[in-house]
Each structure stands twice: as structure tokens, then as C-alpha cells.
């Protein structure tokens, strides 16, 4: 696999691994293409992502995109966070191999699900 250095960095030193204590939103998704699984937990306060962590069972791209997305949205307002696309994550990682683009969907979707979970619980 020819992954970018950024991908390898996030794969080997992933940021924000784990489960947020006192999470008020959790999103777990499975990738229908490959069966990989990702869970994102968030602590949202005043429509801002105060804390975010992930757990991923998947390929290096899946792990790196999870790590990257948590970095990208931490401290951001929900609205802004929801606008982070899978492409933006891939771009932030200096790109992904063609057959690995689908992996970035996992991260974007898990985040969306976690926020939706929070919104559902608090409405």
C-alpha cells in the first residue's frame, strides 16, 4: 500500500483513541464494502464538540481517517463539524489510494451518527 506519510503518522500515532467519558453522543457504523467498524463518541456542550474519541476496527486508512476527523472537528461547532466531508478528511491526509477512498466514508458517517445521536437525545 502506498499511503502518504500523514496517513502513516495517523495510523501509527492515532489521536483521540478511546471512548469519551460522559459521552452524550455515540455513533457506530460498519462499512458495507469491507465490514470494517468505527465508533465515535462525543461530548457536546453548547453545540460545540468539547471532546471526541474513536475506536476503529479496520484498515490503516480507516484508522487514519478516524484519527484525522477527530482532530478536525474537536472544538468546532456542530454545524461546522457536519460540513466536514469525507473528501476533506482524505485531503487533510494528503490523499488516499483510489481503492481506499471508501474508507473515509466511515469516519464522516460515524461522526454524523454521533451528532445525530446527541441531537436525538436532546430534543
Amino acid at each position, binding site marked *: 500500500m502506498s*499511503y502518504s506519510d500523514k496517513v502513516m503518522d495517523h495510523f501509527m500515532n492515532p489521536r483521540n483513541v478511546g471512548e469519551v467519558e460522559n459521552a452524550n453522543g455515540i455513533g457506530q457504523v460498519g462499512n458495507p464494502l469491507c*465490514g470494517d*467498524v468505527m465508533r465515535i463518541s462525543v461530548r457536546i456542550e453548547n453545540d460545540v464538540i468539547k471532546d471526541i474519541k*474513536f*475506536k476503529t*476496527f479496520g484498515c*490503516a486508512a480507516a*484508522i487514519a481517517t478516524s484519527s484525522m476527523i477527530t482532530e478536525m472537528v474537536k472544538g468546532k461547532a456542530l454545524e461546522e463539524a457536519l460540513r466536514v466531508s469525507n473528501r476533506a478528511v482524505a485531503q487533510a491526509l494528503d490523499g488516499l489510494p483510489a481503492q481506499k477512498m471508501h474508507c473515509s466514508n466511515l469516519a464522516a458517517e460515524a461522526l454524523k451518527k454521533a451528532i445525530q445521536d446527541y441531537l436525538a437525545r436532546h430534543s
Partner: protein
Amino acid sequence: MRRVYLDHSATTPIRPEVLEAMLPYLRERYGNPSSLHHWGQEAKKAVEQAREAVAALISARPEEIVFTSGGTEADNLAVIGAAYANAAKGRHIITSSIEHHAVLDSMQYLERQGFKVTFLPVTAEGLVQVDEVGAAITPETILISIMHANNEVGTVQPVALIGQLAKEKGIILHSDAVQSAGKIPVDVDELGVDLLTLSAHKIYGPKGVGALYVRKGTRLDPIFHGGAQERKRRPGTENTPGIVGFGRAAALAKQEMATEARRLAALRDRLLDGLIKRIPDLVITGHREKRLPNHASVCVKYVEGESLLLSLDLQGVAASSGSACTSGSLEPSHVLLAMGLPHEVAQGSLRLTLGRENKEADVDYVLEILPPIVERLRAMSPLRC
């Protein structure tokens, strides 16, 4: 960085003796074996000597060896060639659900051409059951193709017993021996096969050369058309250096097989035992005894294969997750699923295949670095509760 190659089922290095034998044919002995002149006849002689050596590895006769561009071509030639040549007798074929893609995809192609193919299940250890082969035979059955040893889990199939069945019923038997030849004894008469696939690059020979054993009298259509090479079974200018290398590799494998198999089996057991001891929630895949001497394969629960491979690679260890030729694919191994493993367990597949240059220290290095890698990945995994 320390580098340890543990992916000998994917491919092997060319042995120095083999390259040595090839070099004259890569240099001054460049004739086309079909040419009548000095250069041509010199090349032809070398091809025929290699044919003898390859035949000897599997106790066949030289004229029963057809050189091909590799195992994939030989598998295609066997399966498609035998199916077409014998279609007048019937259109039913029996194979297993754990064959290499070269056989499996050829079978699927034949299904699209109107053949009926039975894909037999396997046991949890990856064994084809002989009585199920027997039960699947119909008066329409013209071909049975069961691999000798599986490339993903190393399980060795009871081909000789299937051979007896096939002989009784007059059905052609093909076996893909790409992984077994040179590692364990392969004797075409003892196995009772009519067609058998070999590949040079799995036995320290060059890439791009293979062979199909074709028992005298077996009806087989070619899949290529052209010149008169290989008794019209496989046209195209012969890859003389490759064939010469294959011959040398076959001769050396035959010579050293017994001692090397013992050595490798001990290393493999050290590896498997060590893994079991050090890594919890590990599933050994394949049969514990009926397996290739150099083959260790496991599924590491809660962890995905590519992450595992990449982490190992970063520490200099080459391994694979299932077969090399599907490593770009997203689906988990059809072999592991056929053995009944759950999807998410099959995703954690790791294959470590030993070879000539591996020593105890290599095994110990893997045993040292793998547990922390697994631990790190498991800590990230949402599947472990």
C-alpha cells in the same frame, strides 16, 4: 532495520544456484528453441533437460509436462482445457469452495458457458470430505479439481483418496499443487491425478514459469493458439531461462525436501506455539497436523488484517493476510468463510509462511514484536468489549 521475509507462499526468492543455471540462457545461449541452428538446438536441449527435472519432482514422464507462464495459466489450461475437450461426455464438474482464484474463477467462467459446477464445502479445518466428493459425482461428471494444499491455510487435502474415486468412475482429476510441490511429496501416480499444476516461483525458481502435468491420454484443449511449441498444447516462444531455472529449482527441491520439511515444521511449530502462548483470542486456521510444513496461519480476533500487516511491515516483517493476489480486495477470504469463520474474525487473518533462509531468530523476532502490535490495535478496536 531487521528484515524478515515470512511470505513464502506469496513468492520465494530465486536460489543462487537457480540463477546461476539461468544466467547462460540470459546471456549467450539466447536461441529460440524452435530454431534449427546451433543456438536454437542448444536452447532446446536445455528446455528438455528442465522438463526431465520437473517431471522427476512429481514422478511423471517428461513428455507429460507442458510448460506455461505460471500456475494461473496452468490452472486455466487444466480446468477450461479439460472441460471443453470432454464436454461431449458431460458438463458437470466438481471442485471445492477453497480453491485458488485461478481455479475458482475458471469454474465460474465455465458456469457462464453452461457447465454445471458443484463447489464442495469444507470442514472447519479446511478439509474436503472424500465421501462428499463421491456423493457429488453424477453420470455427467467429467472433471474433479481439488487442490493439493491450500495457499491460505496450508491444509493438505486427501487427494489420493479422491484419485481412487475418480479412477473408478473414469473422471479426470486435476489438482493444484502449486503450494505443495517441493515441500511435501507429490507423486502423480500415488495421487492418481491426470492433471497437476506447478509454479516455479513458489519453489525458489523464477516468476513467470509454471507447468501443467498432463497424464498421457488425457484429452485437453489448448487455451492459446499459435505455433507448434509444447506439442501444440501451449504455443509461444519458450521462456528458456525461466524454464531452465524451474528445472534447477525442481531438482534442488526434490533433493532437499525431506530435511528441509523437518526443519521448517519445527520452526512453524515454534511459531504457532509461541503465538498461542503470547496472544489471547487467537484462532489457528487450517488443520493442525495435515498442513504444509512451512505454513502458519491464524486469525487475530478484534483486529483487521491490513493494519496488522502494515504494522509488521513497519518493523521489517513481511507477512500476508490471505493470498497475495487478493490483497487489494476488500472482501475477506473465501477460504476462511468456507471454513465457517465469522466475517469479522476472518478479517483478522494473518499468514506467516516460512522459507529456506528463515532461522529460529526470525521466528523469535516475530514472537517478540507481534504481541504489542496486536495489543495496540486491539486497544483501538470497538469490537473488543
